[in-house]
């Protein structure tokens, strides 16, 4: 964009004082070369570090990969004593807790995002979005602490018994109520991913051209109908991207989940029963594992978790990028 023109097109070399601050030696400005070199080094290091991360994860988990292969992903036997490891309950727990979290967080964050872009008085839009985004800044371990001493006693005492009373005929809401459970983890996760989904969907909705709304309103639609028929469909793939981005966050969330999910290697249909996730298992067992195969199995779990989040995030970025690029292209 601002490259120097090639040698042949340059005018005569200016005589007199050289440009301010140029470091000239042998007729070249070394300042620019050194500057660009240093920035390039930084930029190259980022992908190199990621490659290194993948390589170290592979090395750490090679023992488990060689011994269990893909059986690791489908077996539910996790026994450090006999050296048998299968990650199915962990994968199941990670997926279930994240999906439940999305089930709670998506309607809520979309409602907020739509309200803030379409209906709220313009003055309060920014401040409210900022306050909700502050939730994303709270450290995970603080959510965990709050979950243990505030949320879980509250849920166990009031919400869960009521839920069981009303929906107890479903297998998901049967059995003893522990408090430390899959559902508690999902609720904490929902609070944690909500700001991400809200913030990205709001960005996407803001990119919808106002002609979309105006056309619907001009045809006699109410404000709500204009949103449903003209605004949301236009932003659909971006909103899906925002949701998947939230999913990526939920899948890898560690501390808060570890502290409230109960940490048990079991497959259970009841949401009131304790569960486990991939991230929680790593957090909980890594420092105490002594056998090489146990450590390696946990590193294998980390590798799987990494690959899943990369896929999920790349997909989400692609969707968000498509909407915002189209909006940028459509702008006059």
């Amino acid at each position: 964009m601002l490259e120097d023109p090639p040698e042949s097109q340059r005018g005569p070399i200016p005589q007199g004082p050289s440009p301010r601050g140029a470091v000239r030696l042998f007729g070249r400005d070394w300042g620019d070369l050194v500057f660009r070199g240093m920035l390039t080094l930084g930029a190259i290091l980022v992908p190199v570090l990621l490659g290194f991360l993948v390589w170290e994860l592979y090395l750490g988990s090679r023992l488990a990969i060689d011994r269990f292969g893909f059986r690791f992903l489908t077996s539910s036997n996790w026994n450090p004593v006999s050296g048998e490891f299968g990650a199915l309950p962990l994968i199941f727990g990670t997926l279930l807790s994240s999906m439940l979290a999305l089930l709670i967080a998506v309607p809520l964050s979309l409602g907020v995002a739509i309200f803030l872009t379409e209906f709220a008085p313009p003055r309060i839009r920014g401040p409210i979005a900022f306050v909700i985004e502050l939730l994303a800044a709270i450290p995970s371990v603080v959510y965990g602490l709050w979950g243990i001493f505030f949320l879980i006693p509250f849920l166990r005492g009031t919400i869960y018994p009521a839920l069981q009373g009303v929906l107890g005929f479903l297998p998901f809401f049967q059995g003893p109520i522990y408090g430390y459970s899959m559902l508690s983890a999902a609720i904490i996760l929902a609070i944690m991913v909500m700001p991400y989904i809200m913030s990205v969907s709001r960005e996407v909705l803001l990119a919808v051209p106002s002609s979309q709304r105006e056309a619907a309103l001009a045809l006699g639609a109410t404000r709500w109908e204009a949103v449903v028929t003209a605004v949301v469909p236009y932003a659909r793939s971006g909103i899906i991207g925002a949701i998947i981005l939230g999913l990526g966050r939920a899948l890898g969330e560690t501390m808060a989940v570890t502290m409230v999910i109960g940490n048990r290697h079991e497959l259970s249909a009841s949401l009131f029963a304790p569960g486990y996730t991939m991230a929680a298992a790593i957090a909980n067992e890594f420092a105490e594992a002594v056998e090489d195969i146990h450590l390696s199995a946990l590193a294998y779990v980390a590798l799987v978790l990494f690959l899943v989040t990369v896929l999920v995030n790349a997909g989400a970025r692609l969707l968000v990028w498509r909407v915002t690029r189209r909006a940028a292209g459509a702008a006059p």
Partner: protein
Amino acid sequence: MTRRQIRRGMSNVMVAVMGGAVVVAVLPLLLILGTLVIRGASSLNLAFFLETTSAAGTTGGGVAHAIVGTLLMVGAAALMGLPIGIAAGMYAAEYANTRLAVVTRFVADVMNGTPSIVVGVFAWAWLVAPRNQFSAFAGSAALAMLMIPMVMRTTEEMIKLVPTALREAALALGYPRWRTSLTVVVRTMLPGIVTGTLLAVARIAGETAPLLFTALGNQFMNTDLGRPMAALPLTVYVYAIGPYEEWHRLAWATALVLILVVLALSIATRIATRQRFDRRG
């Protein structure tokens, strides 16, 4: 009721429902802040900042060892992560259309989405496993790794806010590119870059997962980066799941300190960037 009235009523109901969603969404923040202040504020005395934890079961004491640990580890992480993150961010903004910039930006997004526990496993495999020694340095390396993409994207976004005219004016005056970049472009956005960077530092200061099996934690004061070291978020975790009432008290106070630092920096970043927008508009 006419069809028209029903439609209008429906619209009003939905707007009210979404307004309600805003209330529900703001509620957790208020609840968390409220609980932290009620249960943590009373423990924030001088002893909390100056003493280490007293023997299990007794009362009193503080988390001085964890404060020192967090400062040392985050400081070391910043020394490693900031130069790389800022350089990469400046590259992505200055040479925005090069292939390297596109690749680096994408990789930074991938790293941003990588669970911090995975980065912890990486640091363990790289720095802890070969020597069979938990160390604060391994924790710092993991934190630096988490910090790089955050710092990079902040720096890039900030530099992109600088109007092209400003850059062109400096170049037209005969400034070479590197001086234009450093003394005009970066200088203009320095408050934003500094606060954004501090926010990234505050975020990693709240990370627990990557320290669990690298820095490990420590009940005692330690300033040697080659050995296990305590940190504030680790202390919250260990004390929260521990059995003693006294530990829970310290956990609440520590969490309050952590959250106050992060929130203060979030608000400062917002103010610093908002002023820029206003002046431009």
